[in-house]
Each structure stands twice: as C-alpha cells, then as structure tokens.
C-alpha cells in the first residue's frame, strides 16, 4: 500500500517502485536527516489518498511535492478553511494567499473543523510534533512541567482536533532521539486512541491516531489502532540498532523491515528549484 513496504532492504539504487514502475531513475544522495529526504518520504505516504489535512511546517512542503509527483489528484485541505487548493506557488504557511486564490472552496472555519474534519472527510492528517510516544500520543505543548515549562511549544493549533477525527495521522519529526520519541510524552496534546479509551464513559474518537512517524533515521508504523509504534523502515546508511538505540522505549522491529528508497534527483530538484525556492522549509 505504501511505497516503503514494497521497497527492498539493502541500499538498492533503483528508486521507489510505486513511482517508477521498475524503470531505473537517478536517485539523490541527500542525507536522510535533510528536509529534502524527509519531505520526499512524507510525500510518498500520500499516494492513493483522497484528502489530506496539512499542518504547519514540513507537511506543507510534503503535500506540495506529493501533488506534483505521486498523487496529482490529492485534495489539500487546510485548517484555515481552504479546500481543494491549487497553489501557483509554494504556500508559506497554512493561511497563505496562494492557497486561497484558485481553490475549489473557501469554507468558514466552523465548516472546516465541524463538517469536513469531524464529519470524517479527512483521510490523512499530516502533522509536525516535538514528541511522539510509544502508543502515538503527540506533544506540541511544552517540554518539562507545563506550569513552568523548559520550552513553551506552539500548543495544539488544530492538532488535537485533527487527531480525533482524521482517519489517520502521519507525523514528521526532524529529530530522532529519546527526547523526541519518549516512552511517554511530557504532555499529551493530541492523544492516541489507546489513551482516549482509558477515559471511560467518553464518546470515543473515530480516528485511528498516529499510524506513521517519519524521522531522520527511519519510518515507524502503528498498524493497529490499539497497538504501538514499531520500526518499519530504516533510511539508507542507518542501522536498525541505531534506530532502536535512539528511541525512548524498547522499540519493536518488524520482521520485514525495509530500507527507505532514496528520493529521486527529480524530487530534490522540484523541492529546491520549483517548490521551496526561498528555502523556507529547506533549512
């Protein structure tokens, strides 16, 4: 279903089969921790999805790339109310005017969060995070004690609304270490359905929660709504032990762990020369 799971382990120089149908193409040597690499891996997650709710930051870049490569028909939805964006330039944020001009619908925020999101129309919610834990809880609020935090993070924004109602959540992390992937988040902004279920007597959210976490080292997946994140793919040059050693819990490793296909040089070219020409996200 996803590009990763169909890829072979072991540093093949042929790129993602889902894109190239077996044709050998040039692959890029950008390092796995680069924004180019992460955005390309993230973009491939959108193959075959109908409707994506893109959060602030790297997700904006990834959905732009996906629309130009693996899924030209993907419908981009933003919390600002934009539905079916057709941006003529890269969006510098989720409220950029280029997302509005030429879009298919500009809804009220009540319709966007109420009808589109709570109504169950979003297939993938695409979020950034400071921390994601074992069962897929997300922290975007504070590091440390919330009464006097070490770091005050941006907070929920739409994230805790999105996780309750999007069919699934894909997270992109720019770090992979035990602080970013702890056994349990310092603060749970956006809960896993596993954690939601512990709140007895509450109407349970329909979403499956975090199913995929893309990091600079690999791709973690949580295939079971009730389960935990496990290692599904490692990036080229990264060992399984490196990943498990940098994760804050005893990370389960799939038997069929794959190697992430490298970005095509064309993906990197698109990101650098056509999408993020101002280097807003490609820092």
């Amino acid at each position, binding site marked *: 279903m996803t590009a990763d799971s169909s890829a072979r382990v072991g540093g093949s120089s042929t790129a993602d089969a889902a894109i190239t149908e077996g044709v050998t193409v040039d692959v890029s040597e950008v390092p796995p921790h680069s924004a180019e690499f992460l955005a390309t891996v993230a973009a491939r997650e959108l193959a075959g999805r*109908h*409707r994506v709710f893109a959060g602030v930051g790297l997700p904006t870049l990834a959905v732009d790339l996906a629309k130009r490569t693996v899924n030209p*028909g993907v*419908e981009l939805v933003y919390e600002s109310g*934009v*539905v*079916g964006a*057709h941006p*003529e*330039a890269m969006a510098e944020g989720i409220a950029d*005017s*280029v997302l*509005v*001009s*030429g*879009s*298919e*619908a*500009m*809804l009220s925020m009540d*319709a966007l969060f*109420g*009808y*589109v999101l*709570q*109504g*169950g*129309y979003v297939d993938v919610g695409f979020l950034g995070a400071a921390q994601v834990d074992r069962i897929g809880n997300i922290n975007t609020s504070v590091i440390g004690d919330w009464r006097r935090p070490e770091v005050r993070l941006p907070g929920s924004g739409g994230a805790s609304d999105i996780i309750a*109602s999007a069919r699934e959540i894909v997270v992109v992390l720019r770090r992979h270490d035990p602080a970013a992937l702890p056994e349990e988040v310092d603060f749970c902004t956006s809960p896993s359905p596993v954690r939601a279920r512990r709140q007895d007597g509450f*109407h349970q959210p*329909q979403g499956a929660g975090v199913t995929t976490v893309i990091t600079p080292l690999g791709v973690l997946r949580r295939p079971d709504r009730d389960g935990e994140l496990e290692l599904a793919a490692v990036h080229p040059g990264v060992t399984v032990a490196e990943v498990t050693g940098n994760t804050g819990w005893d990370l389960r490793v799939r038997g069929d762990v794959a190697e992430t296909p490298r970005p095509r040089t064309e993906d990197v070219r698109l990101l650098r020369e056509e999408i993020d020409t101002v280097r807003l996200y490609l820092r």
Partner: protein
Amino acid sequence: MTGSKVTTLAEAVAAHVRDGMTVALEGFGHLIPFAAGHEIIRQRRRDLTMCRMTPDILTDQLLVAGCVSRLVASFFASGSAGSLYEIRRRVEQHDPAPLETEEYSHYGMYCRYEAGAKRLPFQPLLSYVGSDLPALNPRIRSVESPYGEGRVYVVPPLNPDVTIVHAQRADANGNTQLWGITGAQAPAAYAASAVIVTVEEVVAPETVRADPNRTLIPAHAVDAVVEVPGGAHPSYAQGCYDRDSAFYREWTPISRDRERALAWIDEWIHGTADHAGYLAKLGEQRWDGLRVAPAPSGSVSYGRRQG
C-alpha cells in the same frame, strides 16, 4: 474524489434514493429541489422519511403521490400562501393514511442538521423552555450546563441517507455555489450518506475557482451533479428566475381536493418524461413571466502572487 459526477436526474435518483430511506430535500423558500422531488414521484418511491424545515408544496405533492410515510419538519404550511391540505388530511383525518410527524422549531431542525454534519451527539439551543414541543417530541432533551447556568435543551443529529439540493451552479466534480437564501443546504449535505446536487448550470471549474468563497458544498461531499435548468420551479433561483407565486396560489384548491391533486400528479409528473417535459408543458409564456432583470453582484479580486 475528482472526476465528473455529471449524470441525469433519472439515474441519480435511481442510484441513490431507495424505498424506506430518510431523504432530506432542503431549500428554505428558495432553491427548493422540485425537479428532483418530481423525479422521486416518477420513480414511485415508497415509504420515505422526508426531512424538510418547511415541507412546502413539494412535500404535499410527494404525499399525494404516496412516496412519504414520515415527515421530519419545522413548519407545516406553505409560506404566505396557506395550508397544505394533503398534510392536513393525513394528520387530522388519517386520510388516506396517517402521517407520522416529528416536529421541531426552525432552529431546532437546523441544529439537527448541524449536529449531523459535525457528528456531534447533540447540539444545544436556547429554545423550548416552557414549550410543549419537548413533550410532543421525546427527541428534544436537555442537559445541565457544567458551568452552572442550569439546563438547556438539545437536539440530536439528523443524518439522512440522501440529501438533495438545488443550486445556481456547480462544476462537474460537484463544487457547488449558491447565493441568496442558503437555508440548511450545506449542513444537510454534509450530514448525509449520499448527496445529489441539481443545478441551473454546470460551469467550468475555473468559474468556481475564481470565487471559492461562494462554494458552500465542496466536491468531496457530492455524489451526483445534474444540470436541471428551472429545477426549482415553482420556487425560485435567485438571479435566474422568480417564484411562480400564481402556482403557489393555484395549489391551494388543488390540494384541498384529493382527487384533483392526484389528477395533477398524473398529468404534470407521470404525464411528463422529465423536468424538460414539465417545463415544456408549462410553456414559454408562463416562464417569461418569471424572468428577472439582471442585478450584478460586481466582481472582487482574490489576487495572484507576482514574480
């Protein structure tokens, strides 16, 4: 969900409306989906639960034709033009059969669609304190405010199997734009499992995308798009044609006599192959009397980034 959803009204109704379903045909005085309702009559659907804030003549006709056994609504008359006699016969005399009704105020009914669209278990509103409506309708319940201001009434979600609306225009994918009175169309569409949109005109995607704030029902919520010019007659489409008020007055005596009403259904609905046939029978002259002069909205700019 891109790709053309354009089809015929006969196909759209055959595909999405089945006997026993809960069907919302919304449009508050304006853009009432008459053509679609008439097609339901032509296809002889039975045992429908009809949801409409203002049942209007359309519901009276669907009742006469035997399509509807249950009515969820908030106003049981025909705007300024008086009683809907088929509804009254059913309720007052059970003639020819009783009609089960579920009754709200306008805002209560609207809030049911809202809760349905938003998948909320309930929606609070300030109405009904002291009213007999909650006693008549056990679905109107109350909850205690957790902030200490006492109890407030709530209504449950309404999620139709199918919602049908009429609009001025849509693109082939179903991005639907309407203006003037917008009624409960958007929440009723989002609340439903399937949505049919009939429009005065199917337009190019570029036309829709030039003014995205006018899109009230995006393509992702729409299953079928049908171009049906004049599809709201005898109600109206703002900027396209006016209400046929003469017809509204004519319906009162027709509705008062069940035999006449049945004959009207036979002649005007079963006797015409489709809405184009209905309009042809209505005649060019009558249509001329409904034409409106243009009143342009003017254009605003959305802007394009330069360079």
